[in-house]
């Protein structure tokens, strides 16, 4: 397969940490508009894969292309974010000493230079977008709260809201429902399906109920490479997947 006509294209990617191969000849392709779920045991390399896509970690070998043409290995974190790749971290990372609203203000797409930030005035359009996002992530009543005072689930949602504010083409979402209640998990699945209507999404998640509710193609990673790929039923009936992951 060629990188052209794909949104995200990883081919033969490898990276080692002190001789340990965290990612081993990994290949993965995401089409524009697609949502994909990534499953796999702890230490399979799911987070490391996101580090490579977002420029935090440089691969030792392999190709990583965005939009069929942009070589992501040549760009740093800030540039990749501006290309349109947003990321939600495994551990929710919101800016705790800022209010919910200011977290969104910081994430909102727009000029990123220090000079424009110094003289920034919020436009009506920006205010409206923030309003919309606050509503979408169900935090409109808490806009003036410090992010530090939110519950764990609310922080996860705020981070998803920050992703939306960034208005990326591709969202990388690392374990979004970890630590959420069942109700919150169901809501999050709904939210992600809604988001996936207009953009591409890569979700890493352990929660099988959640993955089922997403109802998308699934890729199972193991020891840094793809073990199986297909519908959830197909993947979860794969003998090796059962051995290394589901059967434990």
């Amino acid at each position, binding site marked *: 397969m060629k990188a052209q006509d794909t949104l995200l294209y990883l081919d033969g990617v490898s990276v080692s940490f002190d001789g340990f191969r965290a990612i081993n000849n990994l290949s993965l392709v995401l089409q524009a508009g697609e949502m994909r779920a990534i499953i796999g045991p702890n230490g399979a390399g799911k987070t490391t894969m996101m580090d490579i896509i977002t420029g935090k970690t440089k691969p030792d070998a392999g190709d990583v292309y965005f939009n069929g043409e942009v070589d992501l290995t040549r760009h*740093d*974190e800030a540039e990749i974010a501006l290309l349109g790749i947003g990321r939600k971290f495994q551990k929710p990372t919101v800016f705790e000493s800022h209010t919910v609203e200011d977290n969104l*203000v910081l994430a909102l797409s727009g000029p990123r*230079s*220090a000079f424009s930030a*110094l003289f920034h005035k919020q436009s009506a359009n920006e205010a409206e977008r923030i309003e919309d996002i606050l509503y979408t992530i169900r935090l409109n009543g808490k806009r003036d709260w*410090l992010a530090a005072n939110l519950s764990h689930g609310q922080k996860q949602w705020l981070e998803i809201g920050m992703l939306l504010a960034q208005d990326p083409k591709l969202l990388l979402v690392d374990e979004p429902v970890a630590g959420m209640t069942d109700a919150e998990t169901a809501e999050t699945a709904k939210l992600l399906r809604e988001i996936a209507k207009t953009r591409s999404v890569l979700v890493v998640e352990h929660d099988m109920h959640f993955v089922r509710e997403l109802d998308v193609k699934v890729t199972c990673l193991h020891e840094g490479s793809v073990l199986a790929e297909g519908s959830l039923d197909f993947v979860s009936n794969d003998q090796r997947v059962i051995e290394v992951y589901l059967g434990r």
Partner: protein
Amino acid sequence: MITQWFFTHVDRRGGIAIALLVAIAFLVPLSNLLLPETSPLHIPTYLVSLIGKYLTYALLAVALDLVWGFCGILSLGHGAFFALGGYAMGMYLMRQIGPRGVYADPVLPDFMVFLNWKELPWFWHGFDNFWFAALMVVLVPGALAFGFGWLAFRSRVTGVYLSIITQALTYALLLAFFRNDMGFGGNNGLTDFKDILGFNIQAGTTRSMLFAATALFLALAVFVSSFIIRSKLGKVLVGVRDAESRMRFLGYRVDRYKLFVWTISAMMAGIAGALYVPQVGIINPSEFEPANSIEAVIWVAVGGRGTIIGPIIGAVLVNFGKTYFTAAFPEIWLFALGALFIIVTLFLPKGILGLYGSWRTKLADRAARKKDSAPPPVAAENVHLPEPQAAE
């Protein structure tokens, strides 16, 4: 309209501080110059200069708070920028001496005649002009900070490593300025100043004017800091302080933001040094002493980092303490300072102003919870500073 513009950029506390500083800029000179010496409200000239000196330290503390309190850059070398600003002013004052020096050379300062130099080194040219010197007061520290920051922030040097190289920076300058052939008066530095802008530097009126200038510059620094912190740029800085790599994944070029605030801060420190030198009458290499920079960190910690106003309180209080202790019990001052730092770190992590802030927050929180509603919204600068955490 101007008031409205002012208050969109400064909070109530900042507004009060600015008003107070402007008030003392006028009242202290008036009291010194107009009231008879017998009046209980008369402030003697020595005290005017002493408080003026404290206010230059306060200006240095505000500059340091801008980078440490709001952006998490713990500089242990801010004294270097202060001293460079001081040297730029000192060079102007030296050239004002003219033929009144001991050797009566119309151009060369005494120490150059003493070293048998025949002409003025190139970097001393222009310093006979006040405005050129004033420009250098901000440009030299600003340029050094820019170059240093450009290298350090681009290669992502942070935390302890950054603190150590800032300390090395001031130490290197200390050694350099000690050397006679550097052309800055070596060990003795620059002193024996005669006048500034044509006014006798010893005169009570000149001292009062220097005091007023210091208070006004400090007020300006409070305004500039508030303007920066309350802008979106300020929010980015606090974001960098709390979760630097998260900020990068949002598309911000963290190094450029740091470079901006770092350079502004160094320029402020340079102005502080320039106001300090005419009031104390000397600048010598000891101003580059690493311990000076560490003391400045203590002022900020005591007053409350990340509060803009706290560092002013910290600088003034600690230095009053220092003046008192070094006169009354000279042998225990360093122990007292060390103890103070330990106490503040252990029991007052947010400093004096943080104590007041958390007391108010607690009251508001209790009131809010009584009404069974949200925790109170709190401005970013009043909040605890989480340890810098790497976003995974």
